[in-house]
């Protein structure tokens, strides 16, 4: 029980041999393999009678593959120790909270086990997502390598489409938690004044589910890959080999992880705020997390449901998406985008939060238009449920509703505009410090502006007829997701990294990273707008000869993105492995709660919560005449 403070010294470190026995990553991997084979055998037994009726043309038994994945994931989680508490509860042990003394353990061992400390989980998230981010980036490099030539020259069409699908799924699936996983898990409890998340075990579960999802996705290459891209449109996907089962398993696991992550963060924000931390005093990042979590909790279950329907079509021969047997391919499109469109705001809103959270620190001003910023993020979250059919503008389904969806889609630019207004208002007359995190925030503003404006072209149906499904839309969502999410992801790493790791990052390498990434990013994705306008459809392995010049330009720019990422990697390795220069407690002179903690942060975070007062952004010299301005938050005036 955490309510009483009792002495609990760190247990003595056991020798390695003994440590390997028990609940850890090694056991988990062994049990995952065992579980996979048990699931596979059961699937074979279930499936055996139906072989009489259905020919196995693809040579795979999807029931076995699905049950194998299920068994593998269960084995993996059991091996990590996730089954212990549920079994204890089943036997009637009262609910308790896990202690988390392991954060003070030296070495990396604590990261390879189930840990319930929010700081350890955050770093696990950062490393785990980082690995998959780099794998997804590598896929992008391979795609661009193939597109150096108008015909196939490095990969065959199947390999190429598998790469496209892997890149898309990896980035959309794994990076969805890219900010909420590492940073919200770390910062939100401290910002609202508590030492833990509401459900620490659930917090750890979301991470390990995400990791198992990533591994499941990669196993697709053993089953022949999948040709559907990250959207997995039916009925094409129903033709796919067992490689598509990996996609289904992957996204279902990601969906569960996302739903639980959102649920946990939301409950934490609702129930565990410190006394005095009213809703109108929450830092804007917490509001961004909250708005994102609403989407995660509501929209993601639909993804799980639609994947389940697809899996049933593939295993128990239902016909949800089979046009021949009463199903409809558009049912998939509708359900998928009902999740899929909120999903892109799940990616974008945390970025808004980070930019608005960081700007006051680096302009030495309070956040301009705090309530407007919140309204913007909640508005985006709400509107995102009413726009999904713009993905189906030329599909011929509900074509009469297109004016409505045109309006609702263009209305998204209103709350997004609020965010930009807050950014400009905060910059105005500030004392701007162009540190690395600030540079990345400004990069966000530049990229997202063009991402947003190109979105208006896509939302206007006549214009969309040309741009739909072309490289234009591809460029658009890379501007919003890579330019929006990834830039703020790096802003957050450079901003909170020193606090999270306790070590200093190189400012010089960070600036190199930013400028190379920023220029290479725009040089890569800017021309893609033109390529789309010139008639290049998405996901093609060949293209007309006259587009080769631009494509080569884009590919070479993309390699510079890769180089900038290598600079980042070198920065991280140098700081964490070689130099190990301890970071200052508050290098940015930030006034928010997490920066008032000492570095390195102790396991218990704080003894008394640093009371940051009624105003989350107490920066700036007081001015007398800001006529017409809303009263300072918290009613300090």
């Amino acid at each position, binding site marked *: 029980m955490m309510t009483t403070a009792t002495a609990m010294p760190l247990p003595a470190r056991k020798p390695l041999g003994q440590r390997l026995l028990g609940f850890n990553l090694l056991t988990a991997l062994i049990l995952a393999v065992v579980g996979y084979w048990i699931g596979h055998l059961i699937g074979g037994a279930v499936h055996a009678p139906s072989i009489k009726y259905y020919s196995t043309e693809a040579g795979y038994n999807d029931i076995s593959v699905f049950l194998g994945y299920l068994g593998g994931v269960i084995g993996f989680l059991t091996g990590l120790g996730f089954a212990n508490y549920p079994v204890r509860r089943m036997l009637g042990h009262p609910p308790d909270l896990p202690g988390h003394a392991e954060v003070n353990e030296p070495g990396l061992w604590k990261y390879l086990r189930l840990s319930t400390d929010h700081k350890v989980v955050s770093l696990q998230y950062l490393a785990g997502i980082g690995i998959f981010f780099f794998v997804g980036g590598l896929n992008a490099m391979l795609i661009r390598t193939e597109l150096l030539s108008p015909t196939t020259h490095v990969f065959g069409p199947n390999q190429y489409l598998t790469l496209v699908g892997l890149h898309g799924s990896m980035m959309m699936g794994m990076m969805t938690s890219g900010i909420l996983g590492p940073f919200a898990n770390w910062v939100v409890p401290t910002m609202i004044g508590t030492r833990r998340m509401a459900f620490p075990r659930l917090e750890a579960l979301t991470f390990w589910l995400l990791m198992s999802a990533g591994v499941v996705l990669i196993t697709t290459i053993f089953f022949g890959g999948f040709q559907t891209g990250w959207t997995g449109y039916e009925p094409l996907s129903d*033709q796919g080999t067992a490689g598509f089962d990996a996609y289904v398993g992957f996204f279902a696991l990601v969906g569960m992880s996302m739903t639980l992550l959102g649920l946990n963060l939301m409950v934490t924000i609702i129930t565990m705020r410190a006394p005095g931390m009213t809703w109108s005093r929450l830092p804007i990042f917490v509001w961004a997390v909250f708005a994102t979590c609403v989407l995660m909790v509501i929209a993601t279950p639909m993804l799980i449901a639609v994947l389940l329907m697809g899996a049933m079509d593939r295993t128990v021969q239902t016909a949800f998406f089979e046009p021949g047997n009463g199903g409809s391919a558009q049912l998939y499109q509708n359900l998928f985008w009902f999740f899929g469109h909120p999903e892109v705001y799940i990616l974008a809103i945390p970025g808004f939060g980070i930019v608005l959270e960081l700007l006051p620190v680096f302009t030495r001003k309070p956040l301009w*238009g705090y309530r407007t910023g919140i309204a913007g993020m909640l508005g985006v979250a709400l509107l995102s449920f009413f726009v999904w059919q713009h993905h189906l503008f*030329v599909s011929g389904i509900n074509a009469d509703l*297109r004016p409505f969806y045109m309006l609702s889609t263009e209305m998204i630019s209103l709350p997004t505009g609020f965010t930009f207004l807050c*950014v400009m208002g905060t910059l105005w007359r500030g004392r701007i410090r162009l540190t690395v995190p600030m540079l990345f925030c400004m990069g966000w503003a530049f990229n997202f502006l063009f991402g947003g404006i190109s979105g208006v072209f896509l*939302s206007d149906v006549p*214009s969309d007829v040309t741009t739909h499904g072309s490289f234009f839309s591809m460029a658009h969502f890379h501007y919003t997701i890579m330019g929006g999410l990834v830039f703020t992801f790096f802003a957050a790493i450079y901003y909170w990294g020193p606090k999270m790791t306790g070590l200093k990052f190189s400012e010089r390498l960070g600036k190199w990273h930013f400028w190379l990434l920023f220029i290479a990013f725009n040089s890569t994705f800017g021309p893609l707008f033109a390529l789309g306008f010139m008639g290049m459809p998405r996901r093609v392995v060949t293209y007309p000869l006259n587009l080769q010049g631009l494509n080569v330009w884009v590919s070479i720019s993309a390699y510079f993105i890769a180089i900038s990422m290598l600079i980042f990697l070198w920065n991280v390795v140098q700081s964490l492995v070689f130099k190990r220069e301890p970071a200052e407690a508050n290098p940015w002179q930030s006034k928010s709660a997490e920066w008032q903690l000492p570095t390195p942060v102790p396991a218990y975070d704080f003894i008394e919560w640093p009371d940051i007062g009624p105003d989350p952004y107490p920066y700036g010299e007081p001015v007398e005449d800001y006529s017409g301005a*809303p009263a300072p938050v918290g009613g300090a005036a």
Partner: protein
Amino acid sequence: MQDNTPHFRRLALLWVVSSIVLTAIVVFVLAPGMPPGNGTVQASGQVVDNTVLLGLSTPVALGVLLCLGYCLIVFRERPGDDPHLEGPAIRGNSSIQMWWLVVTTTLVLFLAAFGSIELLKDGAGGGQGPNPLSVVGNPKSTLQVQVIAQQWQFTYRYPQYGGFETNKLEIPANTTVEFHVTSLDVIHSFWAYQLGVKADANPGQDNIAYVQTKAPMNFAVHCAELCGVWHGYMFDSGKVVPKTEFASWVTQQRKYFSPETHLLTPYRHTYFPAPQRRGG
């Protein structure tokens, strides 16, 4: 330290001047080259839309960029400045917030209304489903062409000429063409770039798109929806030809295919896709 420079006025002046210049450049220099060209009425309509959007977004983008740039240059902390100095604690300005909302809302409503009018006028070349809202031209003189997509090619049927099926797409100039797009297997998308036509081909569903051709030209056809391994190779080309040439072409094709035409499934708006059952 009180800064009395009229920053706001300076920025506003900068914005007005530069957006007049740049918008003029965009509208008069860039816009005529906007895709998908002026080959058909629908394509021209899309060019108009693209022009309006580009013309309106130029000042908006410029405003934001100028503001960001101005702030970053003018309000930057310079080496040697007192590091303890902070900015003014301005927390908002309700009149600016309100004006921003009013202006952006007006813009959005205008764009949505304009886009809807442009869309409903002539269908804009997009797929409108089986019961189109905007029917274009006189149904009697409209040429019907059925586009059948399958993995991985397009074929075309001309129901008014006996329903023969060919893999060549030719349509007459100065005519309204009604494309009936459907698919036999998975979702494809019929994208005739220069015509300004894009319509998804859904299995078991009819998707109608209209185009009003102008002068003769060649156009490219792509599949714009991922449809399997050879999606990248699913492209084609077509021709808009003079009416007389079309008449002779269609008679010749009809004759050429007549031995096979009666073996085909009779012309329908949809062809029931064969169920694709897989084992397990």
